[in-house]
Each structure stands twice: as structure tokens, then as C-alpha cells.
């Protein structure tokens, strides 16, 4: 009985990893990745990939482990594909498990497939893997919260910071999670919050002192992001649609999602001010809130009892 979702997860993984290979891993980009990989992995390269050193480092390590007896091009290609395959497998598996906290199996499956659908629109840049790894870290964070293993959150954030600093936003979602419980904060919760925030700040400062953080020019970011409003609107059309559906699903959603939706708006504003609004991969973690809320609206009247104990 449990075989079906895993078959679907495998098929989705195959399709998504192939799509990344198809759209990103062409010869030019592979050469670029090869030339930048070692400096990026070691944090020497202040290129546009900023401080996402974890993804190039993982791919580099896989290359070394696999020790592919081909040229450097094939080596990079095989290692990247292996990493992508594993990444998507883990993402889809953990997203399905995450949805299962709230919905019955078939609705969770619809949500899973909707994620695979929006993933097709989120493949940007030379190292799109970093966005997907970031998504996986967020998913892992949500699982830790829901399973009461939130003690591991600071460790997760520490690792995630070396991929994308966006993972620090997990702290905000954790606050939403705690607030949704409606209980008093325990010392443990406060400690986790403090430790997570401390990890964010110290990792940021450590990277700053070793590599040097580039100056964030918010004015420039905003003017760049507003350069082509028509294009921007089209790029965000799916996200806007999901936000609208989520708003419709607000009432029928669990408390955590209602608070988290407010956090998603802050998340959007931060991307707009601090980053590139045209890089849709950066919005991926928001789907972890928007998709369940949309499912709440879409299937609201036929939601199962599963997850009623979940906040």
C-alpha cells in the first residue's frame, strides 16, 4: 500500500533532475562550474554566487569520491547529476512526509506534484542546486520542529548558512511555530532561539572576516528589481496565484500556516530589498507554506483527520 507514493516520488525525482541537467548542465556552464568550483568551495571567489560554498564543495567532494575516469567535463556532469538526483529524492520524500502531518495521503500527493510543477520554474543560475539544497534545509527544519527535535535547529542553520544565508529565516518560521502553539515559551525554546540567532550572526561574521561580505546596496537592488515590471509580474505569476489561493485558504489553515503566511510577506520584502527578484529559486522555501495553505483551500472540505493534533 505504501509503494505508490514512493514510485511517484522516484518518477518526479527523475523528471526534475533531468530538467536541471537539461537546462543548466550544458557545456558552457559545465566549463564555468569547473573553473569556479575550487575557489568557490574554498570561499576564495567573490563571484555572483556570493557565499554559497557548500554546493560547489559537495559536488567537488562527490567528484573526488566517484573518481570518474573521464575528462573533467564528464566528471563534473556525473557528480552534479548524482548530487541533483539525491537532492530531489530527499526533497520530494521529505515534502511528502511533511504534508502527511496535515493531509491525507492522496491530497499530500497532489501537493507533492504541485511542488514538482513549481520547481520547473525555479531553476536559475549556474548553481541552481544551492536553491534546492536550501529548500531541503528548510524542510529538514520544519521536520525537526514538528517532531519535537528543535534542539537540532542551530546545527542545521549553521550548516545551511554555508549554502545560503537565507536559512536564517528559519528562525522566523520557528517563532511562528512557537507562537502557534499558544503555550508559554520554555527555557529550552528560548535557548534554541537564542542559539539559532547567535549561529546566524557568528557565521555571518566568520564569513565576513574570512572572505569579506560585499556591500548590500538596497537602492541598487530595488532599482534593478523594478527595471522591468511586466517581466517581473510574469515571473511571479505562479507565486502570486499561490499567494491568492493561500489567502483564500487562510481560515481553514492551521494556526502555524496563518502566522507563517505573514512571515512569507516579510520574506518577499527581504528578497526584494536584499537580492535579485528575478531569481525565482530564492522563493522556493515560501512554497512550503503556500502549498499546504493552498491545499487547505482546494481540498478544505475533504481534508482528513490526519494532522488535527498538529498546530
Amino acid at each position, binding site marked *: 500500500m505504501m509503494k505508490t507514493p514512493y514510485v511517484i516520488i522516484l*518518477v*518526479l525525482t527523475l523528471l526534475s533532475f533531468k*530538467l536541471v541537467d537539461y537546462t543548466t548542465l550544458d557545456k558552457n556552464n559545465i566549463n564555468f562550474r569547473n573553473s569556479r568550483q575550487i575557489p568557490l568551495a574554498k570561499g576564495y571567489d567573490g563571484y555572483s554566487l556570493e557565499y554559497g560554498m557548500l554546493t560547489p564543495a559537495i559536488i567537488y567532494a562527490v567528484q573526488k569520491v566517484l573518481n570518474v575516469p573521464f575528462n573533467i567535463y564528464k566528471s563534473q556532469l556525473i557528480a552534479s547529476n548524482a548530487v541533483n538526483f539525491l537532492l530531489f529524492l530527499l526533497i520530494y520524500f521529505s515534502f511528502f512526509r511533511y504534508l502527511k502531518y496535515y493531509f491525507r*495521503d492522496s491530497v499530500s500527493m497532489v501537493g507533492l506534484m*504541485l511542488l*514538482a510543477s513549481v520547481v520547473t520554474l525555479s531553476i536559475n543560475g549556474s548553481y541552481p542546486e544551492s536553491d534546492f539544497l536550501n529548500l531541503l534545509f528548510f524542510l529538514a527544519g520544519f521536520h525537526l520542529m514538528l517532531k519535537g527535535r528543535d534542539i537540532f535547529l542551530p546545527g542545521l542553520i549553521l550548516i545551511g548558512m554555508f549554502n545560503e544565508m537565507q536559512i536564517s529565516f528559519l528562525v522566523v518560521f520557528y517563532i511562528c511555530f512557537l507562537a502557534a502553539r499558544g503555550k508559554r515559551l520554555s527555557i529550552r525554546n528560548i535557548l534554541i532561539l537564542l542559539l539559532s540567532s547567535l549561529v546566524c550572526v557568528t557565521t555571518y561574521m566568520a564569513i565576513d572576516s574570512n572572505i569579506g561580505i560585499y556591500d548590500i546596496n538596497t537602492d541598487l537592488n530595488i532599482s534593478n528589481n523594478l527595471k522591468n515590471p511586466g517581466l517581473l509580474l510574469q*515571473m511571479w505569476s*505562479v507565486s502570486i*496565484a499561490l499567494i491568492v489561493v493561500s489567502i483564500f485558504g487562510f481560515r481553514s489553515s492551521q494556526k502555524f500556516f496563518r502566522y507563517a503566511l505573514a512571515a512569507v510577506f516579510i520574506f518577499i520584502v527581504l528578497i526584494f530589498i536584499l537580492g535579485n527578484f528575478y531569481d525565482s529559486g530564492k522563493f522556493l522555501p515560501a512554497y512550503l507554506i503556500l502549498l499546504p495553505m493552498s491545499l487547505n483551500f482546494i481540498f478544505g*472540505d475533504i481534508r482528513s483527520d490526519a494532522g488535527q493534533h498538529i498546530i
Partner: protein
Amino acid sequence: MKPLIRFNPHLKPAYIVILLLTIISVQTISFNVIFPNVPLRMKLQTDILSGNMEPPYQYRILKPYAGFVIEKIISVFSDDSALNHVISYQLIMIVVFLSIYILFYLFLKLFFNNTISIIGLISLSIIIPLGITSIWEEGDYYNLLFFLIGLNLIFLSKDYFLPLIMLAGVINRDQIIFLLVFYICYLISINRLWDKKSILIIIASIALWGAGYYVMRMIFGFKETKYTIQWNMAANKQMLSQIIFLWSSMILPFAILSIVAFRKSPKFFRLALISLIPYVAIFYFFGFLTQLAKFLPAFLIMIPMCLQLVKNKGYFSSLDEADQTMLKAGELT
């Protein structure tokens, strides 16, 4: 006064998912097909409409004509020809994908409950990005739409409209003739192949397809194509490793699951799956196997077959509440 269209509130999940998928697919096509090289697309359109294009693209006039007509209408409001081009083709894609998803949903609903049909719909939308190989390929989605219209007509016993689909479809892609194979599979499955009406429909379909095929060549001239069978075979051979990789990710999982579901599937799908073997062979001789958008009609057979695997499992077997309500209302049999 009775409303023209009755909105069934029990189908809310499907309506919303269809809208979401339409937005996703239109965005995918816009960013990967329409936007990347608008000047080249405009040139291709002009070349086709003026009869200066190489075959077989010369004879695929439905898309450029549709685009041209919408461009003319939009030009009343804007002088920017590139913008008009983009908007007109995007508008067409919205209509095409909305129709594709509605019709595929209706087709799936003939066999499955609401949730499984929605899963089938999303499966189709996930495949679409992998089929994108050029900046001038929206015709493949028109083709998919014609196949869907045809399949719905067949299953709703409105098959007498099939010849018209052939006529409209042939000015887009010659491939539409394969719809007749699906029709024959259907007729065999219900033991109606040798009915007078069925034979007449088949003959009329072939006649109108042939008429469309020859009229196009009479208008634009019988041009010699460089894409001969030998040329296509050589190209496919050259891209063999790429083809294996692409097909193993995109086609193989669906093919394996369809084979596993073979026994559980209705007779029509079993026959149609077998018919996909010659379909692939024809594809090998007459096209590039990397251009998977041309293979999309095959998914109209494979996706429902894959869904058969979940249909009778405890996992999805219980009818949705929406379905149960409809059953009570006598809308679903």
C-alpha cells in the same frame, strides 16, 4: 433565467488546479520559447506566411496565422511589433493550455475519481518543460490539444466530428493522422470497427486529412525537404546518448508503469499502448527523438494507464467526497 455555464462547487479542486497549471505552463513556455528570441520568431512567422520557409515548417501554418490575426487586433492598441508578437502568442498559449487541462481533466474523469484525475493533470504539466527544444514549437501544444479534442469526441460518441479535427489538425502537424489509430483502437475495444458509421468516419477523416495535406502543398508549392528519412535516422544516431538519457528519465518510467498496469487497463488503453510502438518507430524515421514535445500525445495514453495502478489500491480507492456527493446527485455513474 438559467445560467449558460453551471459552476459545480464540488469540482472546486479541479478548477483551481487547472488554473494554476495553466499559469505554470504559460510561464514555462513564455520564458523558454517565446521570450528568448523574438526577432527570429517574427522572421519565422513572416517567412511561413509569405511562403518562403523550408518544409515541413512551411506547411504548419495554423500557429503563425493565429498569431498573425491576434497581432493585428492588438496592433490597434500598440505600435510595438515585438511586444504585440509576444502578447498575442502568450494569449494563444493561455487559451491552448487552459483547453488542454480542461479537456484532459474531462478525459481522465471518465475513468477516475477527482483526486486521481488531478494527479494525472499535474503529471502532464510536469512533463511539458522537458519537451521544450526550440523557440518555435507551440504547434506541438496545438497538436496535443487536437488529440485531446479528438479523444473526448471519441469517448463522448461524437466521433462524427473527427474528420473536422483532421482537417484543422493537418494544417498544424501531419501527426494528427495518428488520432485515427487511437480511434481504431477504440472501435476494436467496443467491437464497432466494421460498423458502417465507423468506416464512413474513418474514410472521411483520411479524405479530409489528405485534402488538407495537398491543399497546403498546392498553395505553398511542393518543396523538397532536407529532413529525409536517412537524414533523420543519421541525426538520431548521432544524438543517441542524449536520447537514451532523455528517454530514460522522461519516457521510460511512464512506459514501465504503463506495462505494469497493462492488465488492469481498459481494452482501449491496452491497444493504444501497443499502437505506441509504431508511433515511436515513425517518430524515429520522421523526426528527432530529442524533440519530446512531439511525443506528448503518447502521454494521453500512458498517464491514464499509470493511474490505473493507483485506482484500485486502497491508497486512492475511496471516492472523494466530491464524487460521493455527485453520485448521490446522480451526476456520476
